[in-house]
């Protein structure tokens, strides 16, 4: 089973302070750490588990700057066989659609039975690249997948819907599945695998290598800004004992004590 995994290197912002830079269109990046997007790490792990079960080769692809090669190399250390970087520096501002077209133009020449992506990138929050990509290359898709079974060369995917409900569907291969976090337990790369991966080549694809029509962009980021403050909580202050007293008064006031 040949698998393609699309991964993205993103700033780790969940627990970091994020500030807008002077252009007003980007964030100050130098103090942030960058790593593989969270749900992509689950997608990669799922690909490795499928490969361990069914054999085949895994190709990881990232549209990113040269630093994304570090991310791709770690993916190879974990178990991917080949890696391709599409040179983001060649393509200017990217939206989900443009990203999907660039990925698609590379993927169409690579044999695959399944394409896996994360369900959402934590930097742009679009959750659209995987599905747009599936449509562009003409294969079926399912999003938010939390379990995959392969039965009679078809995929049974379990999608996570709202409220904890799962949707079980059957999908023909090749298909594209976007993977939700928690589907598996992503591994760490072993040191030996790291040493081997360090020597592996990463193929790069630039503007000159991408044939075909115009790459179109749908959306343009005009301005980044700190969200307006909504209804704010009344912040309780004082000694810990005073705070606890205020809290118990509030809880009592609701008739809950």
């Amino acid at each position, binding site marked *: 089973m040949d698998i393609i995994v699309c991964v993205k290197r993103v700033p780790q912002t969940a627990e970091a302070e994020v500030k807008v830079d002077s252009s007003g269109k980007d964030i100050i990046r130098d103090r942030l750490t960058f790593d593989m997007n969270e749900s992509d790490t689950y997608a990669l792990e799922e690909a490795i588990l499928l490969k361990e079960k069914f054999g085949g080769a895994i190709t990881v692809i990232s549209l990113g700057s040269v630093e994304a090669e570090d991310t791709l190399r770690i993916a190879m250390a974990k178990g991917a066989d080949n890696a391709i970087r599409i040179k983001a520096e060649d393509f200017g501002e990217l939206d989900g659609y443009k990203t999907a077209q660039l990925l698609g133009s590379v993927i169409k020449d690579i044999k695959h039975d399944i394409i896996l992506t994360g369900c959402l990138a934590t930097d742009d929050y679009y959750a659209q690249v995987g599905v747009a990509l599936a449509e562009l290359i003409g294969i079926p898709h399912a999003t938010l997948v939390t379990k995959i079974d392969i039965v009679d060369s078809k995929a049974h995917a379990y999608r996570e819907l709202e409220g904890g409900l799962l949707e079980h569907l059957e999908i023909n291969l090749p298909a594209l599945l976007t993977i939700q976090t928690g589907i598996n337990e992503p591994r*760490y790369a*072993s040191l030996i695998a*790291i*040493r081997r991966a*360090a020597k592996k080549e990463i193929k790069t694809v630039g503007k000159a290598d991408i044939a075909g029509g115009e790459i179109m962009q749908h959306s343009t980021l005009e301005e980044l800004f700190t969200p307006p403050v909504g209804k704010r909580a009344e912040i309780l202050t004082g000694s810990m004992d005073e705070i606890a007293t205020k809290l118990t008064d509030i809880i009592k006031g609701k008739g809950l004590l």
Partner: protein
Amino acid sequence: MNFDLTNDQKMLQNQVRKFAEAELAPVAPEIDKSGEFPWDNIKKMAKLGLLGIIVPEEYGGSGFDFVSLAIAVEEISRICASTGVIVAVNNSLTAYPILQFGNEEQKKKYLPQLCSGEKLGALGITEPNAGSDVAAMESTARLEGDHYILNGTKRFITNAGEAGIYVVFAYTNRELKHKGISTFIVERDTPGFSLGKHEDLMGIRATANCELIFEDAKIPKENLLAQEGDGFKICMNTLDVSRIDIGAQAVGIAQGALDEAVKYSKERKAFGQPICDFEMIQSMFAEMATKIQAARLLVYYAGYCKDKGMPRFSKESAMAKYYASDIAVEVARKAVQIHGGYGYSKDYTVERLYRDAKILELYEGTSEIQKIIIARDLVK
């Protein structure tokens, strides 16, 4: 000249950092409290190849260099100093002397066990009456038929309580003074070998630090490392190497303390503003960060000297170990200071880091010994 990490070093750093943050951070405060040896995590680290970082693949190791070992130990120690030294001891105090001085049978027999975590390693030099003065050791070994009969007591031995393979030093000929010291590989189930007191330490509390007691312990003749009388040379060379990763441990503890202090200073308010806005705090941060970076470069350089195959790098590794230990204690102390009273409470990580840091100035040669090594190189 090039300050960039190589691709494999960058990846190693990334994965070890992730591992440490996800797997070590949750248990670090607990094992500090209980003193329990972190076997679960040691086994996970064995699987990743962290117990044999500098051991070649043919002996079950990961085949990395000493700069890489330093990077790994720094990342681990940033989160858990106990785990950091457990890994350092297994690599450079046990696997390294066997790799460097052992014969092929010894390497084939012991290195894979050390790398897989099947048996952990420990090193026995220090004795109740012999610390900095190694040649004052009282342990003796005499050859009787196919066995050496080992007598003596080793003290403050990291990993001792949980290890399976010990590299132990003893006199085979007292008259030759330090040239009469020999080195033995001792297995845990050796008759006449037992564990003594478990030390209740101030810091690095989860390191199974114990006494080794040898009472007519029977060591097979073939477990002599190198030749009789090579012990002192093995000891000095091993310490030169291990000081690189004790330096790395110091950098890790210091970095951990600085990270905690910066985070706290943004959260904590005094006089109506976050304390990170105060210049006195900022001055401390500037000093801490600069010293950490200087120490890290000294550590990397010492590792580089070893990796390059320089025959002697005692001065370089002594400088790295001395300086990094010194600033780690200082940085941890300042991190406590920045936390104010909370820094003195066990609720905050810096309290543990401050206790953990102190050992750095004491083990693998005190700071005073490091200075002697450095100075001797200048005036000899």
